[in-house]
């Protein structure tokens, strides 16, 4: 994978993106409908409407403080851990059409269905095996063979099995940053999440580890719906099928990734991707 900095508007990138990505959106796995979000009195998200197509990668880009991480964290109700936060509107999850941000919906149930990978690799200071098994243990899986089988499957799914298969009982903290992040991805994958959220998953990693994670996200696309926040526009161009540009808590534009980066409809999007602000 080419990890050299590529100008987002360069023609070669646009072509490679178009070759690799489908331009057709699958039916939505989740749909944000007039979603609002408040930290206390401060409205961080304003009337967001966005469909997240199933088994495709949707990237959220925008300048710092535009609300992209805040939006991502609505999907697994992470905000409920902070006092004085409030949701408005809805995020409907198919197929059962449950409203993820509904006050009658248990945030813990939501988090058991929607996985998340964080900005900094945050493995538990336990063994690699116990890290990946934790979600399964929470679900009451106790059988050693079942656990071992599903841990292996998750680690293979996160493209790290070969590197850690002999170190399953070593502390996950002994791994490199990129390996830790892939263990964290395996930990999220182990419980077969319906959507996998990535919150700037490579911002703490070196370019080679970043390339591996990006490759992995591209592969995951066939199995799971991915929503990724990224600071890095090249990354959005490389891994995503669709890109949504957010600014000041609002969704400005969403389209096929290649179109956003070559021919955005809105002036604000163009200014951002050409580096005029951000």
């Amino acid at each position, binding site marked *: 994978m080419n990890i050299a900095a590529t100008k987002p508007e360069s023609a070669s990138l646009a072509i490679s993106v178009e070759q690799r990505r489908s331009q057709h959106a699958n039916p939505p796995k989740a749909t944000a409908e007039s979603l609002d979000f408040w930290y206390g009195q401060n409205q961080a998200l304003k009337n967001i409407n966005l469909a997240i197509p199933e088994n495709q990668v949707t990237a959220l880009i925008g300048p710092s403080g535009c609300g992209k991480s805040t939006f991502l964290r609505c999907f697994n109700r992470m905000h409920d851990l902070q006092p004085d936060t409030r949701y408005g509107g809805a995020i409907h999850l198919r197929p059962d059409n449950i409203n993820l941000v509904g006050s009658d919906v248990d945030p813990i149930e939501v988090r058991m269905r929607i996985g998340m990978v964080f900005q900094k690799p945050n493995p538990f200071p336990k063994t690699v095996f116990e890290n990946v098994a934790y979600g399964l243990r929470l679900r009451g899986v106790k059988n050693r063979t079942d656990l071992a089988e599903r841990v292996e499957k998750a680690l293979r799914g996160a493209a790290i099995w070969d590197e850690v298969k002999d170190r399953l009982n070593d502390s996950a903290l002994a791994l490199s940053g990129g390996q830790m992040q892939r263990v964290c991805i395996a*930990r999220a994958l182990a419980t077969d999440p319906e959507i996998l959220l990535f919150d700037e998953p490579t911002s703490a990693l070196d370019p080679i580890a970043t390339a591996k994670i990006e490759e992995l996200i591209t592969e995951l696309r066939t199995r799971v719906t991915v929503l990724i926040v990224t600071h890095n526009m090249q990354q959005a161009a490389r891994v995503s099928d669709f890109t949504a540009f957010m600014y000041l808590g609002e969704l400005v534009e969403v389209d096929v990734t290649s179109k956003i980066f070559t021919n955005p409809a809105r002036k604000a999007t163009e200014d951002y991707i050409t580096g005029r602000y951000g």
Partner: protein
Amino acid sequence: MAATADITLAQIRKGLYWRKQLDKVFVIVGLLVLFSCLGLLATLFIDLVHKGSSRFGWDFFMNFPSRKAERAGILSAWVGTSLIMFVTALVALPVGVAAAIYLEEYATKNWFTNIVEINVTNLAGVPSIVYGLLALGLFVYTLGFGQSVLSAGLTLALLILPIVIVATRESLRAVPKAIREAAYGLGATRWEVTKDHVLPYSTGGILTGLILGLSRAIGETAPIITIGALSFIAFLPPSPVSGDFPFLNFEWLKSEFTAMPIQMFNWVSRPDQAFQANSAAAGAILLGMTLLMNAVAIWIRYRFRKKINW
């Protein structure tokens, strides 16, 4: 390096020389203060060992107190102290840790928790004799525990509770937010996050806090005199382990007791000079016990630091 228009390089060098001298002065002052503190402790310890040197030996540990100084020992005192410390640890650990978990992980910030927090810190400053008076009324009389090992252990547990709570809260707080988020993100409840992650990762700090609390409690004299420690005891509490079913017995909790500082106080207040050596020897042993506990605390902290490195 380019000197600005009005300050020449020579001036900068001269200024730097004096600034670095000042740095050295601070190091010297710091070392002086440090060594005078350590020297004081060492002098004290050596003095006790020297004065009590004639008394160290197996007999001193295994003999009960006696009217004859050369036959008197600290058996009932160190057994009493050990049993009291055991009760203290057993009570202070769960209560202190539970209180800290509630305050740190569960409580929402409001006027009530603010008052609780301020008072926990204040409790650490309450004179120990006041705890003794409280315990005399509450444990000895109202609850009817009497002048027993149980009363003494509970009293000292109250005394070190603030230390345990503050130390526990600090080590809970040291667990990074990212780790909690990872566990919550997988669908853990608050209790699962606490039990599976926050508590295990902060065990080192919690145990360190407990041991530091115990090493304060081990030397406390005033509160256990208040609740009625005896200074002359020529028997041991019933053994906690027995040969017959159910193999454990709790009679020792109700036993009368003495403790190391009480024994020392008793000997030192006698006119007979020979007892002064006993007192010094017991003092050296008590100090040794305290230093040993602190060493264990340092070792535990080191072990856990090595295992968990954020």
